[in-house]
């Protein structure tokens, strides 16, 4: 299992557009990806759940990758978050 925290810096937080892009990025990973924020955990491959996390600017998102290719998945998602959120 590979896990890391990311603090959202985007003014709008994890809003619809990047949530969609994040789901696309997560869906491309072979392993299971879970997101945790404000005590809620959702499947990163399901867009409604990810949007409902409603992580705001300054909020911490915990990304957990588990299974095949978890190392690479965590790296990809970290790069995505840094570049977009």
């Amino acid at each position, binding site marked *: 299992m590979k896990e890391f925290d990311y*603090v959202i*810096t985007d003014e*709008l*937080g994890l*809003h*619809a*557009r990047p*949530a*969609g*892009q994040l*789901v*696309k990025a997560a869906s491309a990973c072979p392993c299971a990806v879970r997101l945790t924020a404000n005590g809620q955990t959702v*499947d990163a*491959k*399901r*867009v*409604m*759940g990810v*949007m*409902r996390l*409603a992580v*705001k600017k300054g909020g911490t998102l915990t990304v957990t990758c588990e299974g095949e290719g978890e190392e690479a998945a965590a790296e990809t998602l*970290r*790069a995505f978050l*840094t*570049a*977009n959120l």
Partner: protein
Amino acid sequence: MLKGTGRPAYSGIAIGRICLYKKEQQDLPASSGDAAAEQQKFDEAKERARAELTELYEKAVRDIGQQQAEIIDVQRLMLDDLDYLESVEALIKSGASAAQAAKESGDSFSAAFAAMDDEYMKARAVDVRDVSGRIVSILCGHKNTAADVEGILVAEDLTPSETVQMPKDRIQAFVTRQGSSNSHTAILARIMNIPSLVQTQIALDDSLDGRTMIVDGFEGVYYIDPDEATLAAMREKQHRAEERRSELEQFRGRPSVTKAGRRVQLFANIGKPEDVKQALAGDAEGIGLLRSEFLYLGRTDFPTEEELYQAYCSIVTGMGGRRVVIRTLDIGADKQVDYFGLEHEDNPALGYRGIRICLKQEEIFRPQMRAIYRAAACGPVSVMFPMIASVWEVRRVKEFCAGIQSELKAEGVPCGEVELGIMVETPAAAIESAALAKEVQFFSVGTNDLTQYTLAIDRQNARLDEFYDSHHPAVLSLLRLIAQNARRAGIWCGICGELGADSTLTEEFIRMGYDELSVSPGRILELRRKVCESEATIDEGI
């Protein structure tokens, strides 16, 4: 005459006929009793919805741009959302028809969004309703009518796909009962420059269709069946608004010269290469502040010299011979750039930032300065250094720059002359401006920081609003001193902070002797008018 109010989403006046936009009432077909058949109907409708959304997405990219169009793309993802599909499947298994299951699942997901305490997320309920509504419509065999509207559009609320489908050239205004300033209607209205109101109390009655309506997007007021006096008054207001716009247009392309013949250059503040388009559209005479942080943010490692060079060069080339003033990296602990490895500071505004980082960590400064000297081969470039407080800092930086230039020449890399200046944004630099002026070729006053440091007031702290005075006599007298010392030393000086755009001070700046004001691109024509109409001359007494 009926008068009502709403929240303005975009200013302007529209006068026209009401087009009432109502969604069709849908009678949901009952289940055939065969769950497998219903599931198949749903799956087919889902695929059709996907095809429609793909088409709509492409139209949206053409009409309103890639970024806004991605809202439609999120809907495509929702179609495949397992939570949604599982909910539909369970309802069908328990005896619902495909249409009932799609509607009920959509409604419950949308209600979950609507109940959230975040205004932005609340507004997303409409996306969920939009996508499930599309499937339901397909299952009910309905056709979409959003493409046939014209005039002043009055509706309960508009979904993103409806707004995208509407013919922009035939719509004069949007008026909705719901919606917020984050709603798609509001966003679209701003992109399309159409006067619009959201959150009105208008009663959506069939009899509204075709009646005359006035939308005042300045005041947030609408009139239905206006009387002659109101109609005349609003036509006058519409006329005046257009006149004001076209009056400002007359100042496009004109030099910014006062009646007494003094030239004040009006430059634009920008933050990335894409902003060049707006700077040119705003009729900027140059770029007075290029915030160079853009290439450093949102990545995991430092940009290379080549990346920096390409970006600067595209801006310099884009400005077609007009001067570009690049401010070197102004990053500190208050910005989230992990790879700089900056330690947490309790007071980042007074911390390790701006030129202090560049002087201590040459490996960061070197690629940027090399890129700037190389970009100077593409057109006129100036560079200014942030957070200067002492003369020795400027001497060190100048030495460093001279080294960079001779290094590039020795390597045979094409480079040009770069005008060297400093940001005057610390009270120390303002007070020492006579000595500093002997070292550099220009000053640019960063009024935001200068004010914050002079008054010891943190702009981010809302509780200090009543203590904050942007026209504080202490700040104005520093501004006067800076300009005076620049003139004595024979160098030019400008203002690139927010205060530069304050048109109540434009004449005062002219009197102080400022040569340049750098503001956001949309403010240039307005300030040029101010300059051209001014009788002010430099106050030699100061």
